């Protein structure tokens, strides 16, 4: 099992007046899965993703990543897991405007301590795999939204992680660019990477094989995607 969450919750506010962004929740995600987490704004899906990606600590419960308990790990240890085992794709791309496309993609490898030659080779390979061969030295501001998201995907896979966490990856894109990005994510899953994708769009969620629906900080359903809506053309419409 890649991820095993046992009664994890995320609580904010004072102890006597708590607010649960995520109520105690248990779930398991096996390696190679393609999971969509769906819900309205404030349903707790982004909180869940932050916990699964070790960007935040649960207020209670246990979270095992590749069988290793992570809730008590020191920040340096969780940083190492994020660096080597998890790739993030954000709705707003989060590219650094002052760096070229290549340098942006190299960034996780910089923190991995890779040699300049190695990280350049791996970053170029990642960019080639997302179809951006001609854009190595372009600045992010000169790229379209779809291209910027492809750069972000290249950055997410540069360190060859086992888990890809995508937070509304098509949320800022037009339907054509969004379709391209979804196709890329599907292809990466087909190569064996586990994908957990957060979206509010049921059509996009239907591209996953498993859909977790959330409401008010709780999982309300967890099961296979509706085969009727899995077709790309229908999802896009």
């Amino acid at each position, binding site marked *: 099992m890649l991820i095993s969450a046992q009664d994890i919750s995320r609580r904010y506010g004072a102890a006597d007046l708590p607010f649960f962004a995520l109520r105690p929740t248990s779930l398991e995600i096996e390696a190679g899965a393609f999971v969509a987490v769906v819900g309205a704004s404030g349903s707790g899906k982004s909180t869940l993703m932050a916990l699964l990606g070790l960007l935040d600590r649960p207020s209670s419960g246990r979270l095992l990543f590749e069988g290793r308990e992570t809730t008590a790990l020191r920040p340096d240890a969780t*940083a190492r897991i*994020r660096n080597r085992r998890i790739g993030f794709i954000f709705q707003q791309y989060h590219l650094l405007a002052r760096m070229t496309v290549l340098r942006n993609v190299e960034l996780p490898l910089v923190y991995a301590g890779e040699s300049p030659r190695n990280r350049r080779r791996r970053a170029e390979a990642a960019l080639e795999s997302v179809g951006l061969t001609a854009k190595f030295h372009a600045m992010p501001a000169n790229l379209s939204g779809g291209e910027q998201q492809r750069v972000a995907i290249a*950055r997410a896979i540069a360190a060859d992680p086992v888990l890809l966490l995508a937070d509304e990856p098509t949320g800022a894109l037009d339907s054509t660019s969004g379709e391209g990005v979804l196709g890329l994510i599907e292809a990466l899953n087909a190569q064996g990477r586990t994908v957990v994708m957060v979206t509010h769009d049921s059509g996009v969620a239907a591209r996953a094989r498993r859909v977790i629906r959330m409401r008010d900080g709780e999982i309300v359903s967890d099961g296979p995607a509706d085969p009727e809506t899995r077709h790309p053309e229908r999802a896009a419409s």
Partner: protein
Amino acid sequence: MRPWDALHAAALALVENPVRTLLTLLGVIIGVACVVSMAAIGAGAQQRISEEIGAFGANVLVVNPGATRKDGVSSATGDQKSLTLADAEAIAGLATIAAAAASDFGKVQVVAKNRNWSTTVNGTNVRHFAIRQWTIGSGRAFSPEEEVSAAKVAVIGATAAEHLFGADDPIGQVVRILNTPFTVIGVMKPKGMAFGGQDQDDVVFVPIAAAAVRLIGGANTVNHDAVAYILASARSSDWMGYAVDDVTRLLRQRHDRGTRDDDFTVTTASSALAAQESSTRTVALLLGSVALFSLLVGGISIMNIMLVCVTERTPEIGLRLAIGARPRDVAFQFLLEATALSALGGLVGVILGSVAAVIVTRVLGWPVLVRPEMVAAALGLAAAFGVGFGWYPAWRASLLQPVDALRAR
């Protein structure tokens, strides 16, 4: 993260907003430039003072006639010629004194063939040269017979020789001093400038007896034995204190001062120059404090800007943490940016400070010395301010939680 990568990231961040970077640098630039130029001026003055002490002689003391008060009227120092040749002889006899020489001098016009030059004519004896460790460059000094017989011979300084004879050899030539012909028998080795920019080589020495009878002393109808000052050397520089006490005691006794104040002053080269050194140090300290405050303001402005940077770049910090940066990597990056800012400011400040020091040398004629260790200290100080003032913003950046930082707007 490799150090070079951190440095590259810091450079990119600083270049991204050049105007802000430049404005932030200004405080440090001004501070370091002040530190460097003040230290250069201070070091230059210090070096010149020690050179002059060395040149004048660390064991030399000068006795000048002091200010006196008669019938309620005060005279200025040196107005009264209270010192005599006999005083000089008595001083020479003291156990702590190696040699003593009386001198009388005046500024007069000296003529050599078709050239003339206004210079200092100093009536003294050969012991004067020994006390000041001043040697003859060519020719010879006065003989004892010439000193006693008030012979019309002269030993001239290098500057006077140049103005009176140009490239010609002055030895054996005649100079007319107040219409009296004197034969040049020697030329002194160049001695250089004294403190205050006085050229020590612009001088003509004649036997003191000749000066007293034929030149300066001729006007003094009251006392032919009166001299302008007495130069003496202690047996060693360690004996200076005793020598000064002995001379003071002797002259008070000889001048029958009783309970009255001294009618002379005893000055050592180091005491005269120490006063100068003290005032130089005070000015350097004052300006140094201004420079330090300037650096402090520069450091605070760096901290302020770095705090703004941390706030502005919170999403970037979130991203870096998400993709694997450790909190200490984030802290190091911001600390490096602050240090790079202040070190860069320090570098520009060193250049500007050195240029300012050179301008001061040219325009005001002050001695200036830019020492490598001074430059290194200024740069180190600037970098230390960068680390000191960059620490807090860097620490704040490292405390950010990835999830909160990513959500920041």
